[in-house]
């Protein structure tokens, strides 16, 4: 009993219950603790960081019913509780706004802890099914309309059900890749500099600089360069000629502002192929960034791009690399790693659902994202990913491509351990999940 009291007293001093338990087990009493040194505590099996903390708090707790609640007290009390940070943050914020006595504070904290304990998931809960249902069910209420204009009217992005499917399919490239780029403080409010940067990033092809015409009589292609785009994109006609020769390896002449290109052989086919090549040629800028829209938001200019090239954008001067966003999840996985991809899946899926006005708890989406990424690489929800790599033969056979899975299982001599849901449904026995995972035990004779 004495031990329990000591634990309580220690907890009042803002020492976490776990720590207090260790101290008590090591034979510390309150008086002993006041004399102890950090080394003594470390010997008792406490990390030095925690030991220092305890040293700070071991003296008497502040006198009861002090009218003015210092934030230190709130902090130390909170530290002793096992609560997730979201709650502690909120408590810290809200408790400081009001005046209250320590009794009230204790009562509040106790109630919060109780409420948290009550809200916790129960073991054996089939959270996977619930997550799948919670995401799948609102799918029926989502729109099919692929294109929708959100935020930036000029750039169209896929939304609704097709976008959700795209995210869960872990497609290599989304149907409408898009980036949001925020800029460094130095230039973010300077319109001209921002515009210059945008021209740098945006891909420039020959066709952006002038009009193309095919001269069939002379078997040549003429491009009338115009001054304005050349100036805007900071590129001289000579550079254009140089780049074109580099890229295409054909004869290019410059007459004033007129670019004349001859194909290697004067054949009609060659000519047309050359036109196609010119169309696809990138003169300047980052490949993949097809269009940029500049918008002013809260006093700063933000770039929205059609097309995505995360790695290259991050290397650009003038952009704020901590605030670059892309909706291409695979790219994020490649550049920033799987944890970033997980967060991106959660963000993208939440945004898609929110835009449709559908409320879905993050935890469900987190679970899906974790399932897709827990192997270290992005896996699709479906035949070629999570569902196809399950250990159970029967479960895979019941999902898709039944016969192939059965034949392969026979070749490998696979064994189905019958742990999952589908397998047990197929053989007709209770499922080891939820209430099926527990059994009553009869005590006594």
């Amino acid at each position, binding site marked *: 009993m004495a031990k329990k009291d000591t634990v309580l007293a220690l907890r009042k001093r803002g020492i976490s219950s776990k720590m207090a338990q260790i101290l008590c087990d090591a034979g510390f009493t309150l008086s002993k603790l006041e004399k102890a040194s950090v080394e003594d505590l470390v010997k008792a099996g406490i990390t030095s960081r925690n030991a220092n903390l305890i040293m700070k708090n071991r003296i008497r707790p502040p006198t009861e019913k002090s009218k003015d609640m210092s934030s230190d007290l709130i902090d130390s009390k909170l530290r002793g509780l096992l609560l*997730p940070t979201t*709650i502690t943050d909120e408590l810290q914020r809200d408790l400081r*706004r*009001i005046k209250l006595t320590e009794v*009230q504070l204790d009562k*509040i904290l106790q*109630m*919060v802890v109780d*409420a*948290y304990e009550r809200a*916790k*998931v129960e*073991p*054996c*809960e*089939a*959270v996977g*099914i619930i997550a*799948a*249902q*919670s*995401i*799948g*069910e609102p799918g*029926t209420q989502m*729109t*099919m309309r692929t294109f929708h204009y959100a935020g930036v009217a*000029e750039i169209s992005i896929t939304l609704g*059900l097709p976008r959700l499917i795209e995210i869960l399919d872990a497609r290599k490239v989304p149907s409408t890749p898009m980036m949001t780029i925020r800029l460094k403080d130095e230039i973010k409010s300077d319109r001209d500099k921002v515009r210059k940067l945008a021209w740098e990033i945006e891909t420039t092809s020959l066709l952006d600089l002038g009009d193309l015409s095919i001269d069939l009589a002379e078997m040549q292609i003429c491009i009338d360069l115009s001054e304005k785009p050349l100036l805007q994109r900071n590129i001289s006609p000579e550079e254009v000629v140089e780049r074109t020769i580099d890229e295409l390896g054909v004869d290019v002449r410059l007459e004033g502002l007129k670019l004349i290109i001859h194909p290697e052989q004067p054949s009609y086919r060659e000519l047309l192929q050359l036109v196609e090549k010119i169309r696809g040629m990138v003169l300047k800028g980052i490949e993949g960034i097809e*269009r940029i*829209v500049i918008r002013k938001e809260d006093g700063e200019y933000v770039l929205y791009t059609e097309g995505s090239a995360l790695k290259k954008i991050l290397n650009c001067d003038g952009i704020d690399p901590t605030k670059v966003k892309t909706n291409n999840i695979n790219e994020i996985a490649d550049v920033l790693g799987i944890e970033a991809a997980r967060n991106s899946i959660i963000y993208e899926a939440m945004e898609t659902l929110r835009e449709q006005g559908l409320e*879905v708890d993050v*935890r469900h989406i987190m*679970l*899906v994202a*974790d*399932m897709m990424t*827990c192997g270290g690489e992005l896996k699709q*929800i479906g*035949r070629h990913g*999570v*569902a196809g*790599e399950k250990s159970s033969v029967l479960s895979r*056979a*019941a999902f898709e491509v*039944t*016969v192939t899975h*059965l034949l392969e*299982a026979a*070749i*490998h*001599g*696979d*064994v*189905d351990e*019958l*742990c999952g849901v*589908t397998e047990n*449904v197929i*053989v007709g026995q209770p499922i080891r999940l939820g209430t099926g995972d527990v059994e009553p035990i009869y005590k006594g004779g």
Partner: protein
Amino acid sequence: MASPKRIKKIKFGLLSPKEIRKMGVTKIITADTYDDDGYPIEMGLMDPRLGVIDPGLRCRTCGGRPGECPGHFCRIELVAPVVHVGFAKLVRKILRSTCRKCGRLLLEEPIKKNYLDQIKLLTKLGQPCDDLVKNVFRDATKVNLCPYCEEAQMDIKFEQPTSYVEGGHKLMPADIRDRFERIPDEDIKIFGMDPKNARPEWMILRVLPVPPVTTRPSITLESGQRSEDDLTHKLVDIIRINQRFQENREAGAPQLIIEDLWELLQYHVTTFLDNEVSGVPPARHRSGRPLKSLSQRLKGKEGRFRGSLSGKRVNFSARTVISPDPNLSISEIGVPLQIATELTIPMNITSRNLEECREYVRRGPNNHPGASYVKRLDGRRVKVIDENREELAELLEPGWKVDRQLQDGDLVLFNRQPSLHRMSIMAHEVKVMPYKTFRINPAVCPPYNADFDGDEMNLHVPQTEEARAEAKILMKVEENILSPRFGGPIIGGIHDHISGMFLLTRGNVTFDKDTALELLKKSEIMDLSEPAGYENGKPYWTGKQIFSQLLPSGLNLTYRSKMCDNCKICKREECEKDAYVVIKDGNLLCGTVDEVAIGAFAGKILDRIIKEYGAVEAGKFLDNATRLAIRMITRIGFSFGIDDEDIPSDAQEQIHDIIMAAEERVKRLIEAYEAGELDSLPGRTIDETVEMKIMQELGKARNQAGDIAGHHLGMDNSAVVMAISGARGSMLNLTQMAACVGQQSVRGERIQRGYADRTLPHFYKGDLGADAHGFVKSSYKKGLSPIEFFFHAMGGREGLVDTAVRTSQSGYLQRRLINALQDLEIKYDGTVRETRGQIVQFVYGDDGVDPSKSDYGKSVNVSRIIQNVTGEEVMGGKSG
């Protein structure tokens, strides 16, 4: 009761000829099935040793009757071996990567060992080794000289579906078999195969197992003719060819004929196994219908796996049309008497319920709460009929079982497809009622997504005590008011419940004592609060007071109702629209109760009650509130008809003027566009810019027209009440009915399709005007012109197609999600793991909180707790 045995695991493998011969009860040698008397021929395909399907006969292997005997395999000894189609590609790979002389894998010893170690490691870890095996085959195929016997390897060509050519010579299955037999066990392991369960030569069939008759029952047609199953037909073909092959070979027929027959045998075995192989013409029935092969029986939605094994059929269930009954509790279900007499619940007789059971049996099967069967101690079931019921009742003793008919208070599961979430199956209490439909409280429609336009629903009766306990604790309607999707209520008032509440609580409606009691009569309220005041010496109560009777005392809540316009400065309690709701200590002080308060998916008051007072209290509140609302709305009388859309003629003229003006502006826009005076918006072409501007202009016109119509339709209009309270419909719907339907769109644009440069031949080419692209000036009340009607139909059709596509797409998405996530479970250490024990999350959702127990995703409502303790409202924290 001893728990049934559990199947621990299932091992897959190939059947070896030895095993096939061992399990086959007989050899099949004749292609005939039945003799002239209709008896199965011995050693034929319907041999009585294979099991029986005809009633009256007994299985000659196990002695079982039809239904008892599971059937027994037999075999066909093939004269020459044939390739199993399913493994044709693998056979090619193995042929290419093993030596044609010594049969060993064409890789050096150390490389082999390396691969073998890797495969062993992967299998130990439970990972698939497909990619590794792929590399083995790739590497071995490249080798041209056997490293062991130095035999030069030849290129092997594979011709779909089952023939192999080595250097110009066709490899017969017999040759392949010989080669495979030479492969040592160690090398087989490197192919990812298990030599104990799957030797490669077993992929070349020498003996064909014949499935038992029970899997291919023959049907007797009405004409008395027997019609055999597809598989039997196929087996007959195989036996015939097999016989001919043997005769020819024994007679010493030329090689050419032998080879032809061999190929024919291969064809029949192939189509027996899989009749959809590319490159093979499907085998057909005499009528021209392709035969259903073994693999097609397994495949697809209606196949064995998805159709029969994953989808089970059950007894003790019922299905009928549903209809509403607002007087039922939300947790009740009205069950037709006919169904209640049919469905039963087993009762174990003990000394305590003996008399009760006797009474049931005494009443017999036709006298409603009766019994239909009794089960004696020796396990025999006796049907209770009118003739023996008295007698049986006396015989009853503890230990017997009685199948009692469904009666009031029993728990049953109720379900509506598509079962998209767990609220699609909930437990209800039975209430036996006359007539033939299931009756439910309309408030439980949202979770089932049901309406009463002819929907049917299913009912299941749990048969064991455990099942009933689970149903009661986990599946009762009250337990499912909160959706695990977002932690808010999904069950709540709909339609008339909301209109009724709205009419009751808006403004200061007053009632005298009689009316007040009348309204509350059905709501289980015992006493009335102090009257709000006296008029002519008589006490009166306000609607708000009457509603407050339902609220639990101690409930505090403030929020803004649906009517709130989000004014810049909120007047709070003084709101002239009565949109600021304040509930103090269970009393509605001000504000109107509407969809935001009690509606499904929203229901703030409901949400608060369930979170602070529990599910049972919330269920009671819902029952009471819906009944009160229905009483209110029936008392007032609430209807909507065509004349409710009438607006005065001067308003109609105004609307007409607005639309004319808008058309004029559109015309001017087009003129500007044609003259090239229009500036394009950034990032848009000029064409897109005109389109957008025209759309804007017309949209504005419709809104203005709607405003005028709305101005003339006041709160005395039922449709307005419904729209504003959130019961049904919107002001937009009303606008379309009364003023102007507005622009019709396909793919988010004005209507563009049709003829070249015009939508219909009634317009000039290139006409960009409003009416040429689907602007509907008329209102639904006025009626649409033929052209407008056509455009309207176009827009409507798009909606229909959209819905159809969406359901199939989202259905597949959900199937995939379920399949990927179904095995995840919270373990006792708080981690989320899948079947292999692999950890998916260390703490569920990063904080271990159950969304259905959370407050709209928040684990703890901190500000509410602070408010409850200190009585102070925390500024900045969201209220309610």
